[in-house]
C-alpha cells in the first residue's frame, strides 16, 4: 500500500470511528459517562486512602495516580475492543477481504478511543484541582500535556496488541478488561510499586502506565521535560514495541483467519 492510501484509510477510519461512537452514544451521554466514571473512580480511592491512613499514600498521591489511570482505562478498553466489536457486529469478515492491512484500519478506528482517553485525563485533572484540592501551583503544564500525549499513544500500541487477539478469540473484551485495570495494582497508581513482590515489579516496569504515573507526579511537582526524558523515552520505546508486536499479531491472525475461514467463528 502506498503512503497516500494508508493516510486515506487512517483518515476514513478515524472519521468513521467518531461517527459510529456518537451515533450510538450521543455526545452528551458520552460526556456524562466521562464525568461520572472519572469522578467516582477517583473518589473511591481517595476515601480508601483517607480511611487507611498510610502516610506514603496521601490523597494527592492517589488523585494524580488515578487521573493518569483514567487514560489507561479509557484508551486501553476502547482501543482493544475495536476488533472484537467488528467481529460481533459481523463486519470483520468484510474488513479482512479489503486490501488494507487490519492494523491500519484498527489504528484509525482507535482515534475515538485515544480522544476519549485524553478527555478523561483532562476531566480527572480538573477534579484533582477543583474538588480534591491538589495544588498545581508548582505544576509544569507543558510537561503534563506532553506526558498526556505520550501516555495515550503508548497505551494505543498496547491496546492494539491486546485487541489483535480479538480476531482469533470469541471476544477481546475479557483480556482488554484485565489489561485496562491491572494498572490499578501494578503501575504505582494507588501505592508505590516497591510494595509489590519483586517479580511483579518487573512486569510493572514493562507497563507504559508506570512511567506515565511517575512522570505526571513529577510534572505536577514542577519537573520540566528535561527532567522527565527517561520516562518519556521509556513510554515511547514501549509504545513502539507494542505497536510492532500488534502489527505482526494482526498479520498473523488475519492470515490465519483467511486460511481457515474463521473470521466469524464464535
Amino acid at each position, binding site marked *: 500500500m502506498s503512503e497516500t492510501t494508508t493516510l486515506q484509510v487512517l483518515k476514513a477510519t478515524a472519521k468513521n470511528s467518531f461517527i459510529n461512537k456518537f451515533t450510538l452514544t450521543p455526545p452528551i451521554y458520552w460526556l456524562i459517562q466521562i464525568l461520572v466514571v472519572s469522578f467516582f473512580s477517583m473518589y*473511591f*480511592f481517595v*476515601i*480508601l*486512602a483517607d480511611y*487507611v491512613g498510610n502516610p506514603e499514600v496521601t490523597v494527592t498521591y492517589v488523585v494524580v495516580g488515578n487521573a493518569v489511570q483514567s487514560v489507561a482505562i479509557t484508551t486501553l478498553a476502547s482501543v482493544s475492543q475495536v476488533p472484537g466489536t467488528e467481529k460481533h457486529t459481523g463486519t470483520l469478515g468484510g474488513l479482512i477481504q479489503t486490501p488494507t492491512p487490519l492494523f491500519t484500519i484498527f489504528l484509525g478506528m482507535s482515534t475515538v478511543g485515544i480522544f476519549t482517553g485524553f478527555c478523561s485525563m483532562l476531566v480527572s485533572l480538573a477534579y484533582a484541582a477543583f474538588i480534591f484540592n491538589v495544588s498545581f501551583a508548582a505544576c509544569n503544564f507543558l510537561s503534563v500535556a506532553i506526558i498526556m500525549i505520550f501516555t495515550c499513544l503508548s497505551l494505543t500500541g498496547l491496546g492494539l496488541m491486546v485487541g489483535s487477539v480479538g480476531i482469533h478469540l470469541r471476544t477481546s473484551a*475479557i483480556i482488554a478488561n484485565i489489561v485496562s*485495570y491491572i494498572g*490499578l495494582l501494578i503501575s504505582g497508581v494507588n501505592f508505590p510499586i516497591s510494595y509489590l513482590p519483586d517479580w511483579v515489579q518487573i512486569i510493572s516496569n514493562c507497563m507504559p502506565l508506570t512511567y506515565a504515573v511517575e512522570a505526571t507526579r513529577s510534572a505536577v511537582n514542577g519537573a520540566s521535560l528535561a527532567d522527565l526524558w527517561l520516562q518519556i523515552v521509556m513510554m515511547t520505546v514501549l509504545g513502539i514495541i507494542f505497536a510492532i508486536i500488534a502489527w505482526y499479531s494482526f498479520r498473523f491472525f488475519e492470515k490465519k483467519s483467511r486460511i481457515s475461514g474463521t473470521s466469524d467463528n464464535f
Partner: protein
Amino acid sequence: MSFRAVKAGFRQQAIQFITDPQWIIPSLILPFLFTMVMLFIYRDVTGPIVLQAVLGGGVLGMWANTLFASSFTIAYDRMNGTFEPMLCSPTRIFDILLGRSLWNAFIGLLNAILIFIVAELIFGTGLSLMNPIGFFFMLILTLFSLSSVGMLISTSFVFTRMGSFFSSIFEYPIYVLSGALVPITMLPTSLQYISYILPPAWGIDAMKYSAIEGYESMMGVSVYTDILVILILSALFLMASFLVMSKVERRILSDGSATRY
C-alpha cells in the same frame, strides 16, 4: 407473575452462561483488584480490617456481576434479534428478567465465594467469621438487595440501546455508596443519605455485623433492624422496577422503537 416464564428465564440464562462461562472473569477482576489494592495499601495489617477488605471485595464482585449480567443480557437480545419476539410474546419482560436475574444472583454468590477463596489463598487472610451461618444468611440477603437494585437499573437497558453507558455509570457509585470497602461514615453527609436508601448498604452492614466481632453497625442499629430495612427497601426497589418496566414495555410496544438503532 408467570412462574413458568421466570423458570424459563433462569434456565435460558444458565444455558447461556454454561456455553460461555468466561464472562464471569470481568466481574471478578475489578473487585478483586480493589481488594488487593486495599490490602497492599494497608501492608502488614491483619485481623478485622483484612476481613472487612475481603468481605467488601466479595460484595463488589456480586454487584459487578449483577450489573453487567443485567446489561449484557438485554444488549445481546437486541444484537441477536431476539428482543422483538420477547416483546411480542404474552409474557411480561419483567418475569423473564426476574428469572435471568435469579441466575445472575446465583453466579454472583459463587463470584463472592471465589473472591474469598482467592484472597485466602494469596494473602492467607485467615477468614474467621464470628457467626458463619448468620453470615451466609446475610450474604444471601445482600445479594437479594443488590439484585433488587439491578432489576431497577435493568429497566433502562430495556428502554435504551446504551446499556453499556448505564452499566458504567452505576458501577462505581454503588462501590462507594454501599460502604463495601470503606465505611459509609467516611462519606460526606449528603452522600450518606443516599447510602441509607440503598438496600445493599444495609446488607453489607448486616454481613459485617455477623462476621466481625465488636463491629459497630451503621447508625448503631441492631442486625434485626438491618434485616427489616433490607427487606423493605428491596421490596420497594422491586415494586419500582415492576412499575417502570410496565411503563417502558407499553411505550416501546406502542411506538415500535424496541430495536431502533
